[in-house]
């Protein structure tokens, strides 16, 4: 099979295509590619593997047996190309020359184009270990470009890796709670109705709805991603995937729990046909996002964080700007002005280049 250049190329194209497609799908999809590779490996096992081949309970032996199987069925040319060794008590290390890898086109193109990448060889080994040992595994790959070598590592999974948004049959869920995909016009009519009957509660309703609904999502993300930047990146990606806006962290100071967040094209920005007269004068209106960000940061820092929208795209500019502070610091006069240290407005694309991050 490996001799079949066309088949190998088609396989690579398929993976490239999946990687290009996943970011275009609504909602998330980080682990789908892993699931695809795992599924392929399980099919190979079901078709070709006799259980005797996988008698051992030793991860090293299991992986070696699987590589040998791939060689036997002609999927790879030589198992010697895949030296596997033990690295510490529960980590395996696999070294591979890129020129020998059947997934090299995918691997190289993904790296060049910054595509979503998960090495299919490593994920198939994860699948084999899970299949034989009944225990979840995870993997990473380090690429040494100069030497042309990929170094993969396999280790038992520490935390449950899954999606924040999932779907089972007709039930869509976000962080385990039922989710809905509604046209924005439905949301607009809810706001219209609140405005007509009780305009003074509108901002509070939105802030609190954003805050309270974001808490379970934030808690789930915190379990999955203990690093603050990773945690916020995942949550912001979820907001983008759900169509709420493109959110970018401008700065985060973990010592003071202060953050500056930008959002481009917030879903709360009115569109031509409706929601044009929600307020009498132009003003900041993204209170649901304001509450959402306050919840994300409150969950992360385990203290009350309040978030203010300082500037809204609905008034002018290319994005909304949110600033958050812990409530315990609320008391006391304000310090140095943000405006004096930052040139504003800046182009939306010039983010993350100013060294605002600290931890």
């Amino acid at each position, binding site marked *: 099979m490996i001799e079949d250049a066309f088949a190998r190329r088609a396989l690579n194209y398929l993976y490239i295509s999946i990687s290009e497609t996943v970011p275009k799908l609504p909602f998330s999809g980080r682990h789908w590619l892993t699931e695809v590779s795992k599924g392929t490996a399980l099919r190979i096992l079901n078709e070709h593997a006799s259980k005797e081949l996988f008698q051992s309970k030793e991860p090293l032996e299991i992986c070696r047996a699987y590589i040998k199987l791939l060689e036997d069925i002609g999927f790879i040319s030589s198992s010697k190309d895949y030296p596997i060794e033990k690295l510490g008590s529960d980590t395996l290390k696999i070294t591979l020359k890129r020129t020998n890898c059947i997934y090299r086109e995918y691997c190289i193109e993904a790296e060049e184009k910054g595509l979503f990448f998960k090495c299919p060889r490593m994920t198939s080994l994860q699948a084999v270990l899970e299949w034989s040992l009944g225990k979840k595994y995870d993997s990473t790959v380090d690429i040494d470009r100069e030497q042309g070598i990929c170094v993969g590592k396999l280790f038992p999974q520490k935390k449950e890796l899954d999606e924040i948004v999932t779907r089972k049959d007709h039930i869509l869920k976000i962080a385990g709670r039922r989710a809905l995909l509604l046209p924005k016009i439905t949301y607009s009519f809810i706001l219209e109705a609140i405005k007509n009957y009780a*305009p*003074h*509660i509108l*901002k*509070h309703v939105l*802030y609190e709805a954003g805050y309270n609904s974001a808490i379970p999502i934030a808690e789930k993300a915190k379990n999955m991603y203990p690093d603050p930047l990773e945690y916020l990146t995942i949550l912001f990606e979820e907001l983008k995937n759900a169509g709420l806006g493109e959110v970018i962290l401008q700065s985060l100071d973990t010592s003071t729990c202060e953050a500056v967040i930008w959002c481009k094209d917030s879903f709360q920005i009115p569109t031509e046909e409706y929601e044009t007269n929600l307020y*009498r*004068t*132009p*003003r*900041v209106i993204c209170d649901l996002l304001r509450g959402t960000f306050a919840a994300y940061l409150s969950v992360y820092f385990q203290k009350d964080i*309040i*978030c*203010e929208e*300082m*500037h809204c795209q609905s*008034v002018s500019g290319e994005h909304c700007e949110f*600033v*958050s*502070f812990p*409530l315990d*610091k*609320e*008391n*006391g*006069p*304000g*310090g*140095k*002005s*943000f*405006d*004096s240290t930052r040139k504003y407005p800046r182009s939306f694309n010039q983010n993350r280049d100013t060294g605002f991050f600290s931890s």
Partner: protein
Amino acid sequence: MPETDRAFLGVEGLDQILTEGLSFGSQIMVQGDTGVGKTVLAGDFIKEGLHCGDTCIYIACDEPPEAMRQHLLSFNVGTRAYEKAGRLILVDAYEEEQSTEKYCISDLSNLEKFFYLEKQILNDYKNKKVRLVVDSLSTLLTTAPAEDILEFHRSRLKYLRKNNILTMDIFVHGVLDDKIMTISSHLYNVILKMNFGGSPAHPVRMIQIGKVRSQRFVAAQYMFNISPTFGIIVANDMEVGI
């Protein structure tokens, strides 16, 4: 008036009455009984300004500025972000020399000095849409002679109008002489009177919003309530007589 040049009080029921809103440079006189909710109204006015991108300056004469911070926080408005951005300036004219605030005004008995310091602060925010609240201005005027008060009003309000400052001056009912209050009220564009009505057993809060026209204060009267979350709520569909 272009939309962005309009300003509202931030109290839904009153803003519906002020259909066209106010322009920057307008001056609002708030008169009211002690404890009726004048500072709550000031909080609504500031919150509205912060949400519209205005720069809000609050001169606290009767309580430390911290009280306004806590008050705004109860409306879900975190003041620190605005203070840091230079959009909310809380001026301590209460604790005087003991103040730990960034901005403070002392020696309140000297009206000229107050006006000078006020101008200094306003000068830092030139070319911004500024809302200025003095809570309460009557505190500054208690010991001043009538002619000084009127002269102070004339020069100060002229300056504020010329500089497009949307001003809200708060007066506690009963502090100043009625005659001075009447003359002063002619210098303002909008008068808001807040007082307790009803019977002693069932007091209700009443608010009137209007203008002085041909020597008479013309306004409809409404009942209102104070909500700890939403601020002043005016039942403007329940007018209670002229």
